[in-house]
């Protein structure tokens, strides 16, 4: 480039480059709008076509059934934002639920048993994080290993047998609040837990330093490191959060069944990932929200309930949900390629 030419054309930089960008930002929020619209459209369609869809009882059931996918989806969203993935969720669900039931069965108080169950899930997440950051394994491989190990452990310690839990263990999953009448059977505890988890982790991700770092690491790991962010710690925390959410799900499920389920939770991670991805989380990292994961899991939940009420078989539901996953991600890809 010509230096002498440059000297002659020394002028204030043209401001055009920075002004031409606003439409993209608008499009981003448009996407969030689209997903919410799709959500509302689903509710309307099912309300019109299935007679009993939009009833209080049905909505409450839907919320209860979707609560566990939502919690797992929120957890896995953290790992996906860092640019990773967690395939061990299903196994951790089984492990932590079983550990909690076993603890209760040896006579520990219920709250302590459940805490121990949660701790087992957080430990799995911690190990995932250590393996990924310390041994520098791809998250896919590390958590695939953990999926097998955790499953193997739970099958070994239980000999693959379900065991009933003390009755008190079932309160968390089966009791409700605000029960007034037969018309309003109350809101189940898991729904409150889901709301709490969503609010807490949503706040954490949006408002705290560690949440900001989670995005930064997923957006550009090297830039984050060079900005003094402790990248390893951020990743480990993300996997621990995911482990915590999986464990919470495991305990809720064990409590609803009032039994340990060493064979349960198989492939739950895939539903969790699907809900996160439908909600706009990018597998490339750096993009995703708790709110998106919540909407994503409710889209899956509504499809499942709505299609069932339409008389569609479980197999057909699988097809529809699969198509939704593909279409929503294709939409994302299209958006980023256009840029």
């Amino acid at each position, binding site marked *: 480039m010509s*230096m002498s030419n*440059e000297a002659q054309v*020394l002028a204030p930089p043209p401001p055009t480059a920075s002004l031409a960008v606003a439409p993209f*930002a608008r499009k981003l929020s448009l996407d969030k709008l689209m997903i919410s619209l799709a959500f509302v459209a689903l509710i309307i369609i099912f309300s019109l076509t299935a007679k009993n869809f939009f009833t209080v009882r049905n909505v409450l059931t839907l919320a209860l059934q979707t609560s566990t996918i939502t919690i797992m989806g929120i957890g896995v969203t953290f790992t996906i934002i860092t640019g990773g993935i967690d395939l061990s969720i299903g196994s951790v669900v089984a492990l932590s639920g079983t550990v909690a039931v076993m603890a209760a069965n040896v006579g520990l108080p219920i709250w302590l048993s459940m805490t121990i169950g949660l701790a087992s899930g957080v430990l799995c997440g911690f190990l995932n994080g250590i393996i990924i950051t310390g041994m520098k394994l791809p998250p896919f491989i590390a958590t695939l290993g953990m999926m097998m190990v955790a499953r193997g452990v739970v099958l070994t310690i239980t000999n693959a047998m379900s065991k009933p839990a003390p009755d008190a263990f079932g309160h968390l999953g089966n009791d409700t609040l605000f029960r007034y009448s037969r018309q309003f059977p109350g809101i189940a505890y898991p729904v409150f837990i889901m709301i709490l988890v969503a609010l807490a982790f949503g706040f954490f991700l949006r408002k705290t330093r*560690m949440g900001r770092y989670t*995005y930064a690491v997923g957006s550009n790991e090297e*830039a984050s*490191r*060079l900005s*003094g962010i402790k990248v390893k710690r951020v990743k480990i925390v993300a996997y621990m959060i995911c482990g915590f959410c999986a464990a919470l799900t495991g305990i809720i499920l064990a409590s609803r069944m009032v039994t340990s389920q060493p064979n349960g939770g198989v492939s739950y991670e895939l539903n969790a990932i699907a809900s996160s991805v439908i909600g706009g989380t990018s597998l490339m990292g750096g993009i995703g929200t708790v709110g998106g994961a919540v909407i994503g899991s409710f889209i899956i939940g509504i499809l499942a309930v709505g299609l069932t009420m339409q008389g569609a078989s479980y197999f057909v539901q699988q097809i529809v949900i699969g198509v939704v996953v593909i279409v929503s991600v294709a939409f994302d890809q299209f958006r980023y390629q256009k840029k």
Partner: protein
Amino acid sequence: MPETLLQVTEVSKGFPGVLALDKVSFELRKGEVHALVGENGAGKSTLMKILSGVYQPDAGTLTYKGKEVRFQDSREASAAGIGIIYQELNLIPHLTVAQNIFIGREPRTWLGYIDDPKMNADACAILGRLNLSIDPATRLNELSISKQQMVEIAKALSHDSEVLIMDEPTSALTESEIDELFKVIHTLRNRGVGIIYISHRLDELKHIVDRITIFRDGRTIATREYAAITMDEIIQKMVGRKLENMFPPRTNLPTGEKLLEVKHLVRTGILKDISFDVFRGEILGIAGLMGAGRSELARAIFGADPITSGDILMDGRKLDIHSPVDAIRHGIAYLSENRKEDGLAIKMTLDQNVTMANMDQVSKRFTIISRTQELQATQTFVDELEIHTSSLTQVVNNLSGGNQQKVVIAKWLFRDSRILIFDEPTRGIDVGAKFAIYALMERLSRQGVGVVMISSELPEILGMTDRVLVLHEGRLTATLRTRDTSQEEILNYAAGLNPEAVQAGLAAAQNR
């Protein structure tokens, strides 16, 4: 008179805002090695991309073997016999030598599967023509870099190339590997191949070059028989211009107060015993060729790469730096060369990038981020650095290069850094933004910040710095006072030549 193989006549090529080639003419003869030299941005790469079909010229003609040609893409050029070997090798490490040479056009048997014996035999024949003994069934990643480069040459030759373009072929090679490469180049020349040889290492040209063409500012300055030109003349023609008034005036003099001292810094194989000081209020330049270890030096000081030995002192106190976290705590900032790769979180917003290295400032209680403080801080820097953006929450990927660079600078200013190491701060940004960044560096030095600028643009080094360090292959070859030096002197040290050696070399060349 030797036969002309390739003739470039008055070729021009423009990009938005820049005329990269301005009526360039160039001739390559059969069986010659023709060196192409010039500073960064002189237009060498653009011409090479036109010859190899990557770009199409806006005006002018290419005549190849007596016929006017116009290549639509690189496939056409390579099919016509013009091969190019890029600085970075374009080979697939996990395939064998033969598979790499014939990739995309593997010989088939009549049944349609790959004829491995024939492929290996053909590869053997091509390697034989280069006098190389490489087993074609070896996996590429088992070979040394120089051998891999030979494979790349063999691949180009397998297209029956008559013109071979080599872009900085020695940048990754050791001395003995370079000798090996030169032998192959001699073999090729004797076979009548025309070779265009691009290199920043002027010292190595004498071993192989027949003619030399010098580029500057997108124009051909001169073509000479190599034997008829001196090193001094080459460098003068490359530089050939006076510094224009494109830098802000320096308003302060550096103090004698040592801010940062680097003592005997070693990173095995990369940095060799480097010692220097940075004074409060000075702008220190670091010059050197590609691969000289400039960025590596900055990264070592910043704790981004491990060091083998050596000390870093600030205000006379030894610092214990094991990671960027430590360096940042001591007030050292590094603005990396590749903004998008390791400087910015490009999917995130302007304000999020500005506060990224100093979240403590905006999240005092319970690590919860205060949006008010965050936006206020960002607004300050947007105003102060004149960052052109539609909003504070603009995604930085949508900002122009100059504005992105300002965002990176804002990030480190927000951190109150005491030493700012700028790595190629003006690469890829427009002229106006360049001036703004120079002015900012000047202001920082006035405020007592130690500013270090790594740059490949010598005018920028000469126009902005107080002193300049010159690196050559990981070694500090000179520490010069900018006022008393010249581009020629810096280039000599950067090429690993000291001035006396150049004189001796010139004398030898003249006696040739």
